[in-house]
């Protein structure tokens, strides 16, 4: 049970039960869709990009607690960030979910460290982030986890 308790931390359960920034964003000027064909999880990310800065961000979709909580927490973390800051943060997040190492300065996304013990779930945790990065790049191609090296 210890690995599972690590995986489903309180922060994750909370974001799964009460997702933040869920739904379409009427003012969005960027949107990208992510698919995980292995399990059918889906995630759309809506961005309002003012210059280089994310002034609004929401997500929509369906999937497991890990994917939904990750997308929810991501919207909280990315609001107000620049595109470069968002990419950096994804690098940090990716490191956390693949190695389990928690950086001290960033609190909430550290909750996803437990994912690293469940390799099959890493793609769940990164689905929303891949969609967000695609939206930032203005990439019209839907994100799919199959093309990422997680």
């Amino acid at each position, binding site marked *: 049970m210890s690995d599972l308790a690590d995986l489903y931390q309180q922060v994750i359960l909370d974001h799964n039960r009460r997702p933040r920034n869920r739904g379409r964003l009427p003012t969005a000027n960027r949107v990208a869709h992510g698919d995980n064909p292995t399990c*059918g999880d889906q995630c759309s990310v809506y961005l309002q990009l003012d210059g280089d800065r994310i002034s609004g961000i929401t997500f929509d979709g369906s999937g497991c607690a890990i994917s939904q909580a990750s997308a929810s927490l991501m919207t909280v973390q990315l609001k107000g960030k620049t595109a470069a800051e968002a990419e950096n943060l994804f690098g940090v997040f990716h490191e956390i979910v693949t190695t389990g190492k928690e950086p001290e300065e960033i609190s909430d996304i550290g909750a996803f460290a437990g994912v690293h013990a469940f390799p099959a779930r890493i793609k769940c945790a990164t689905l929303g982030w891949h969609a967000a990065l695609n939206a930032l790049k203005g990439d019209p191609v839907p994100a799919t986890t199959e093309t990422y090296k997680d």
Partner: protein
Amino acid sequence: MPSWPNFRADFPVLHQQVNGKPLVYLDNGATTQKPRRVIDALVRYYERDNSNVHRGLHALSMRATDGYEGARARIARFINAADPAEIIFTRGTTESINLVARSWGHAHLKPGDVVLTTEMEHHSNLVPWQQAAKASGATLKYVPVLGADAEGGLDLAALDALLTPAVKLFAFTHISNTLGAINPATELCRRARAVGAVTVIDAAQSIGHAPLDVQALGCDFLAFSGHKMCGPTGIGVLYGRRALLDQLAPDETGGGMVVSVTYEGATWKPAPERFEAGTPNVADAIALGAACDYLDALGRDQIAAHDAALSGLAMEKLSTLPGIRIIGPRVGTPRSGLVSFAFEGVHAHDIVTFADEDGVALRGGHHCNQPLMRKLGLTSTTRASFYLYNTPEEIDTLVASLRRILKFFAG
């Protein structure tokens, strides 16, 4: 539960702990475990008889050939095919259906024709027909699944309107891998034949779970996988009526399937060799024959009764869980040995991860049934699928595990 001997001792893999708990293997819809007899057949072949078939004149090659052709005859008997030549070895259900879709589809489909399938098909009996329709200009139509209150069954009332003389082929599943619904295959074949349509049955979920007789079903083609009936992975069968097979061009060409070859061209052997280019999967075919022996020694009637008793018991116990939505035929309607279900607010993948912690192996997801999931308003379900070695106690373990999961997510 009717009494049924415990066959767990025959299956080495079942005797292990997963995450510190005894393995409760309830993912038989995906693949079944292998009895010692099948594993021994594989080992024996590689230790004593391994050789190439049909071409060698030495002792080992003759033994391998006898084993391979003996397996073909055994499988013909297993499904009551009229002739062993009607058994084509493939990699599995998917390759079998693709073979029909390409070879038969290429020869017979043209613009204006209709290929009919159903809304409950696994992607393996859906995408090949989409491709065949695209390649030929034929139209693909679907027999609807009754939704909402009568989740699971085919809408047979809609079938007459769909089964017009334009329908050249009707492909349908015997048992739905997601719903557990058992389709009236004999009636479907009869109605299809009345309009002159060729029938293809996807028997992936029914093979090895109940007696199966292709002549009584009246089908033209039938596809299944060895690994879902206690056999090895990588071997499957396409049954085809001899008269149809001999009219078809091969899908793959090469060694073993030709009568004579010149620099200008080649002529084909009759079925089954025509459809088995290259060195076949001898070892797995022989082990599949051993799986037929094993299942018939137990009795497929009894296996079917055991499966149905377990799924009935599972339906009864699962229905006591708060907020559960059980997919598929209602109580009192025929159901195979599987139960799919969903909970509001707890995703199937989270359930499967938690159940694994209790040693319970389940399947969660769309079950290669994305269009059906959409139709039922679901993104995923959790599926428990039973087989001859499962016990009522394992259903209690499943239900206890689910209770713990629901409590955890209810917070």
